[in-house]
């Protein structure tokens, strides 16, 4: 990547493909982002940005989880979520970069000298720690998307078979399967951490994780030129500041997955349920009840079935229904 010697200030703009996409997915993305904060806390250690006003409540919340809040830095206040560069502190307005950690680790955190040691304390993969140190700290990149594919000869990269657990291109929205910046779109260690994170989300954030995986599975393109980055999907596009270049660079993740906006609407309310979780629980009990009484080639009719979700669930749970 032939970078130029300037960088734009932090900015973020988002545009939706249509009103329907926005109506359905804007609140979902907000919920995913919010859930992500909680999922990070459920893990061993995490770094989060906390405003001064919220610090006391945050510390109380952590104490109930057996953790403490250890401020590691001050940062200027950003108008958007994820930022490419640390925001400078202006007019003494700042928020804390806080490590949520176990009390027994406090000395390790207090003595951590650099990002490498912090990455290790956060449990990040060694390959990704090395990658971050090289490109972020030494080479001063502010967007590690291109370094993730930097060994390719062309300015335009098309990636196939990228799993959603490895897709970090929606991090500006707070939609991300891992906290760290992975070394590649195929990093196995990242994938394992992502799976752990999704498991840690448990039933409490089942819907949010389902939506996240859905978003991270559809085709997405990242491109950058003149310091402006853009990420495009079928639902939205957003732009942000990135490393400045004279040439255009592009990374596309191809996939045959699509988001059907009609299907995306709530499928539980018209069956009288208050949530997807409540519907899945009720359907799960019925499927378990029928265990042993239905065979693979059976013909089943669902009478007065609402939108047919019970029968669909039954058909999809082949694995628990023995022949």
């Amino acid at each position, binding site marked *: 990547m032939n970078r130029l010697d300037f960088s734009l200030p932090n900015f973020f703009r988002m545009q939706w493909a249509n009103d329907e996409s926005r109506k359905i997915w804007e609140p979902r993305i907000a919920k995913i982002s919010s859930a992500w904060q909680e999922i990070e806390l459920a893990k061993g250690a995490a770094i989060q940005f906390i405003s001064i006003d919220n610090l006391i409540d945050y510390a109380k919340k952590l104490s109930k989880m057996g953790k403490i809040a250890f401020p590691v830095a001050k940062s200027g206040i950003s108008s958007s979520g994820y930022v490419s560069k640390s925001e400078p502190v202006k007019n003494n307005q700042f928020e804390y970069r806080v490590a949520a950690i176990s009390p027994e680790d406090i000395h390790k955190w207090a003595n951590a000298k650099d990002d490498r040691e912090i990455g290790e304390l956060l449990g990040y993969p060694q390959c990704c720690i090395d990658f971050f140190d090289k490109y972020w700290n030494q080479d001063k990149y502010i967007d590690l998307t291109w370094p993730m594919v930097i060994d390719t000869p062309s300015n335009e990269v098309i990636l196939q078979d990228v799993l959603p657990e490895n897709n970090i291109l929606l991090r500006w929205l707070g939609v991300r399967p891992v906290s760290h910046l992975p070394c590649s779109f195929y990093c196995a260690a990242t994938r394992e951490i992502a799976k752990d994170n999704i498991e840690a989300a448990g039933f409490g954030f089942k819907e949010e994780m389902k939506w996240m995986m859905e978003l991270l599975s559809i085709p997405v393109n990242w491109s950058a030129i003149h310091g402006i980055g853009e990420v495009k999907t079928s639902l939205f596009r957003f732009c942000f500041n990135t490393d400045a270049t004279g040439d255009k660079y592009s990374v596309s993740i191809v996939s045959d997955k699509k988001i059907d906006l009609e299907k995306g609407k709530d499928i539980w309310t018209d069956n009288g349920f208050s949530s997807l979780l409540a519907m899945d629980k009720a359907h799960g009990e019925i499927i378990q009840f029928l265990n042993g*009484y239905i065979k693979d080639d059976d013909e089943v009719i669902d009478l007065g079935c609402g939108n047919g979700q019970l029968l669909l669930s039954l058909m999809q749970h*082949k694995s628990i229904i023995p022949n």
Partner: protein
Amino acid sequence: MPKGEFHTMSIFSNYYWRKNYDLALLMPGRLNENSNPHLLIENLHSHVKRILLYTYDGTDPALYFKHFYDWTLVKSSPTMCLLERN
């Protein structure tokens, strides 16, 4: 994978009784919405081997057994009953 058919209004028509089924899923409260529940139950008996009666509101489906006198109960829970045609 079991083959399934469904239709919101199927309970109100005879269309589906042109073929036979191994299992019918029925929320028995829907019988109260049917102008001729006896015809439906007759059709069930002719075309379905088993019926799962289930409720989501905690109602005991056994309250509807009086409609299914020619069926045998093979499994039950407080909100589900599996009936088999005699």
